[in-house]
């Protein structure tokens, strides 16, 4: 597909990185010559220096032959303008990043009136992700498929876990829940395990299950499955606002610590039900005074990564509750993940993943069949949801008779709303959606899983 990306910041780069691997024709527009030099040196894309909202620049980028324009500059207004022009000039699909809470209330109206295909708000998307984690604090990360009916959950096998040194067959006999362990991360290696795989303490596993069964599974193995009762959020930015709004609706008590007086006053107006504390969270005493020890959960959302890391490390020593850390800079993710910071949230990565999954879904209409794409284990594993169309070569054949490629696992079958965790005898039918977990990148059709 031909794609134009306007704005080459962190989100832009994350999108480019992924879309280049998937072999799209990408043209990048950015105002800065330096940024363009950098990106064209490192990726197989074409760069144009200029204002992406200008018609002549878009014309240079061949907007009339483009399938999709993604506007992710720092300014909401420019992004919307880019999309507006592209829609008129090229009649292509458009995605804009819009992050101002003021617009976010009107997002549906803007989207419809301007004819945008998608509006992405990284802060809001991250807030939704955090709220999911707080609803189910035992998991490190939760992704959903099939409109929320299927969940992918990450958790760590602790020393005390009854699964240590057991094979997967023994595990499934023991829990008797309809769940499937689809990936195991051990040290630097990632496995797509089979039944004889033996779990060890410290393994990070991903399970796939229906929403109900995952709760059951967690209860059986002795994890807490209740949502948190209260939370302490550090930093009073946009993400905090979105998150607090969602959490309050869920009935979770919210306490926000923010250093800036004015911001506190703003928040107190927009979030009357939240407790707003005006104070410097890097002062340990304030956190202790405000009851960090008794908190069910702790979320650090300040604008500085280093502060968030320190706060979370400190929180980990004070509370048994769930700790969530927001990190803006993606480049050191491999190092940061070695700290014990609880769950990590990368807003830009989340936004990029949303967009990439949209691109894949768009390609749907031009040959690919991916409905949803989710990246796991730092992008090294992909879980893809495929829609099975008529005439697909896997229809009607029991799974045990299909010759799948290595490192591919069929995680789940959604048969008209019924979630089936596949067994060897399971059969895929037309109209089903199937979730495939793999360490390979770039699958675009269910056929690709066959040898």
């Amino acid at each position: 597909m031909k794609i134009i990306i306007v704005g080459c910041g962190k989100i832009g780069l994350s999108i480019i990185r992924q879309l280049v691997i998937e072999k799209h024709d990408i043209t990048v527009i950015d105002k800065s010559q330096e940024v363009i030099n950098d990106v064209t040196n490192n990726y197989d894309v074409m760069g144009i220096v200029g204002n992406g909202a200008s018609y002549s620049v878009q014309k240079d980028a061949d907007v009339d032959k483009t399938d999709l324009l993604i506007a992710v500059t720092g300014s909401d207004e420019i992004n919307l303008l880019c999309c507006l022009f592209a829609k008129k000039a090229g009649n292509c699909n458009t995605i804009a990043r819009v992050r101002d809470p003021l617009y976010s209330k009107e997002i549906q109206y803007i989207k419809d009136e301007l004819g945008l295909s998608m509006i992405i708000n990284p802060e809001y998307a991250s807030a939704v992700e955090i709220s999911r984690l707080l609803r189910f604090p035992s998991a490190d990360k939760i992704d959903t498929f099939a409109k929320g009916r299927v969940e992918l959950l990450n958790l760590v096998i602790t020393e005390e876990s009854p699964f240590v040194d057991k094979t997967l067959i023994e595990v499934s006999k023991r829990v008797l829940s309809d769940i499937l362990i689809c990936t195991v991360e051990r040290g630097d290696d990632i496995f797509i395990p089979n039944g004889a795989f033996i779990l060890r303490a410290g393994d990070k596993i991903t399970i796939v299950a229906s929403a109900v069964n995952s709760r059951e599974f967690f209860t059986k193995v002795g994890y807490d499955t209740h949502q948190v009762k209260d939370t302490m959020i550090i930093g009073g930015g946009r993400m905090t606002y979105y998150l607090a709004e969602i959490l309050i609706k869920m009935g979770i008590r919210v306490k926000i610590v923010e250093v800036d007086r004015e911001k506190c006053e703003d928040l107190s107006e927009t979030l009357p039900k939240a407790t707003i504390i005006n104070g410097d969270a890097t002062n340990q005493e304030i956190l202790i005074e405000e009851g960090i020890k008794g908190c069910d959960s702790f979320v650090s959302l300040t604008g500085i990564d280093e502060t968030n890391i320190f706060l979370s490390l400190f929180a980990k020593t004070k509370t048994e509750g769930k700790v969530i850390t927001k990190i803006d800079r993606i480049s050191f993710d491999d190092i940061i993940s070695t700290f014990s910071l609880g769950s990590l949230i990368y807003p830009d990565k989340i936004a990029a993943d949303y967009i990439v999954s949209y691109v894949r879904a768009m390609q749907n209409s031009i040959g690919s069949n991916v409905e949803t794409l989710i990246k796991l284990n730092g992008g090294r594993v992909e879980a893809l949801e495929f829609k099975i169309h008529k005439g697909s070569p896997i229809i009607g054949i029991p799974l045990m008779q299909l010759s799948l490629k290595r490192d591919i696992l069929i995680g789940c079958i959604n048969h008209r709303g019924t979630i089936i965790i596949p067994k060897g005898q399971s059969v895929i039918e037309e109209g089903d959606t199937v979730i495939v977990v793999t360490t390979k990148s770039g699958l675009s059709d269910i056929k690709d899983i066959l040898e």
Partner: protein
Amino acid sequence: MNIAVILFTLGRVIAIESAFMVLPGIVSLIYKESNWWTYFAVALVGMLAGLLVSFKKPKNMQFFAKEGFASVGLAWFLISLTGALPPFLSREIPNYIDAVFEMSSGFTTTGATILTDVEAMSHATLFWRSFSHWIGGMGIVVFLLAVMPMVGGVNMHLLRAESPGPVVGKLVPKMKDSSQILYFIYIVLTLIQIISLKLMGMSFFEAVCTSCATAGTGGFGIYNSSIADFSTLIKWNVTIFMILYGVNFNVYFLILARKFKSIFKIEEVRTYFIVIAVAIGIITVNIFKMYDSFGNALTDAAFQVASIITTTGFATTDFNLWPSLSKTVLILIMICGACAGSTGGGLKVSRVLIVIKAVRQEINSFIHPRSVKAVGMDDRTVDKAVVKSVCVYFILFALIYFGSVFIVSIDKYDMVTNFTAVLATMNNIGPGLEAVGPTGNFAGFNYLSKIVFIFDMLAGRLELYPILLLFIPPMWKKH
């Protein structure tokens, strides 16, 4: 420096060159010549060696600008060294340094020769010389990228190191598509010329060799008299094609994409045609007295101007005998060269334009010390970094030029010969003036001078840096 990935690239380049070498082998079979085995043997060994080295992808694919420069610089040395083997093994060129000179002159599209009698060569070797122009014209690494693209940044770093011009860009987002479009244009133009030359009365072999040498703006002739003995029609055909190959290939892409308006906006191409017209005008008037008709004077003037500005180096007359005004004009357009992004060499019209504009701006700043003015081209501002790099390029060019002239002057020739010989090799033209003029050759120079010329030809074709950086020790430090 990531040696593994460089070896990997080199292996692929050698494999491709060896594949090309099969063609002259076939030519020699057709003409039943005894030296066929040299081409097939070198091709076979080269192919095996190349595939062996590049069989396994290195684990560490880290590839930065310096790896790009080193790969391309070494690749060009290597293809010259291996390309020289067949004529050397068959004893057609008995000295290896001479053979390397001849082949690097071929691949760099220079067209300078050490052969005193071209017509004594076998058909296979004549074809290989001309065909090497064709390979070198568009670039063997660009060809590599068209057939076997690499991942991510590797592409861009390689392209930048091999392609001529101050700013190197792609035509379309994907490198593979971009290189394929370039080669498509290149092949189509070559075929058109072959067919038209054939129709104008050349034999098929002559047409192919002449077309290949024109396409790469190389200039190896297959006769001692170059193009002089062919008909006027053929001379004009070659003149026009030389000028076409000296145009930035973006123009042809824009024609393919039907963006005719944008073509006229390209300042470089406009200037290129103006310079050609002015040079032809001056020389025609200047040499008119020596000819019996205006037509003949114009034909020779146009041919020589086209041949020199595009750095091809074909000749239809001995311009050594021209008045010094005409010779001076030729030397000026020798320095200028063709457009960036063409197959021609030289400093490139766009560089000259940028430098002239930068100089004008600098002078202007004495009159209006507080004036702020950007250097613009094609209605766009030229990045300050580009202006600076162009100026540095001029200085570096001059340094290498005078250094080379100094070493060559140890040899026995006069000043004009030395100065124009270095210019003719560095700008990939071929003939210079006096002893190295259109009727002369480079055979008489000693080996030291020849090695300097080989270096200059490669440095000139790859725009100095890739070759120069090979000799700088910190380049080779490990990451």
